């Protein structure tokens, strides 16, 4: 769902750069307190995973593909500040090294695929921190995946509309309908993959995810 270069007007990309810039600054300020020894490698691995997984487009409807966003599962596993930092790093590398997403659209893309889903994921995080995360955690995460992708898709259309990048004959409602219909299916995949990945990573790296400290050290999530 990367907005390419040339589709956002200066006010639109400027506003999004300001919002995402503020979110990144806040995340960096909060990050130190949340980082322990085992969380740094986890951050790196999750970044590599989401970058790689975003390259794997899956077929969704006739002639359309989708790819994982990954912000939601980062929000669950790392919390919002670290998740936003990981997602922003991925999107910066994609834009600067691989010409994936416009450089001026970085703020918008970080908001849509980073800030928004990471905040939703972080809200679901406490459900997974329980000793035995049950059906509620799965369902909330699945629904959050759909919600995150639909919200992101809606923001993208609104930004294109604000930027005058939709043809005159196309109404906003029509554009939202087309975009959100496709992204409903992509969102379901996002939700399912998020549940599976969170389950797996919690299984093998519970201490690192939840910040459970070894005996004798103060625990900090």
């Amino acid at each position, binding site marked *: 769902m990367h907005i390419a270069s040339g589709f956002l007007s200066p006010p639109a990309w400027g506003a999004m750069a300001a919002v995402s810039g503020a979110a990144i600054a806040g995340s960096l300020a909060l990050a130190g307190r949340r980082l322990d020894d085992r969380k740094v490698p986890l951050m790196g691995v999750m970044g590599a995973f989401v970058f790689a997984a975003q390259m794997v487009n899956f077929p969704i409807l006739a002639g359309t593909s989708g790819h994982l966003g990954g912000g939601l599962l980062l929000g669950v596993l790392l919390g919002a500040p670290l998740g936003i930092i990981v997602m922003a790093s991925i999107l910066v590398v994609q834009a600067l090294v691989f010409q994936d997403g416009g450089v001026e659209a970085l703020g918008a893309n970080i908001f849509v695929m980073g800030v928004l889903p990471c905040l939703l994921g972080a809200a679901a995080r406490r459900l997974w921190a329980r000793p035995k995360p049950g059906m509620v955690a799965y369902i909330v995460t699945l629904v959050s995946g759909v919600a995150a992708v639909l919200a992101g898709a809606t923001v993208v259309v609104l930004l294109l509309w604000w930027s005058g990048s939709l*043809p005159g004959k196309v109404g906003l409602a029509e554009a939202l309908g087309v975009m959100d219909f496709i992204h409903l299916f992509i969102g379901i995949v996002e939700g399912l993959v998020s549940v599976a990945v969170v389950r797996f990573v919690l299984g093998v790296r519970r201490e690192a995810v939840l910040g459970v400290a070894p005996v004798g050290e103060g625990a900090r999530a």
Partner: protein
Amino acid sequence: MTRYNRNTIVAGIVIAVVIGGVLSYFASEDPDGLEKTQGDLGATQPAHKGLDAPPVAFNEYSLKWLGEGFWSHAAAGVIGSLVVMGLLLGLGRVLRRARQTSSGGQGSAGSGS
């Protein structure tokens, strides 16, 4: 580095190779949801002056010197994943150190890597 952390990083390298290098080659070539929407709505012409990063080493997800094809794509996927991981490991260390300095090293006693 502890064994726990070394294993985590090895997992990252395996992920980079298997998913970024191999699996991504078999990805769908169809337009993604946004591209498809823009195509359906006839909104594929940029209306503004954009800014694209110059293709220095990579042409999208292909390594320039290798042209197109499996190995070029695999190299891009593996290198991209590892660049992201390296960037985050470095950034994470800096942020963690900043916290230790500002809090007088509390809260992470014995955490020397």
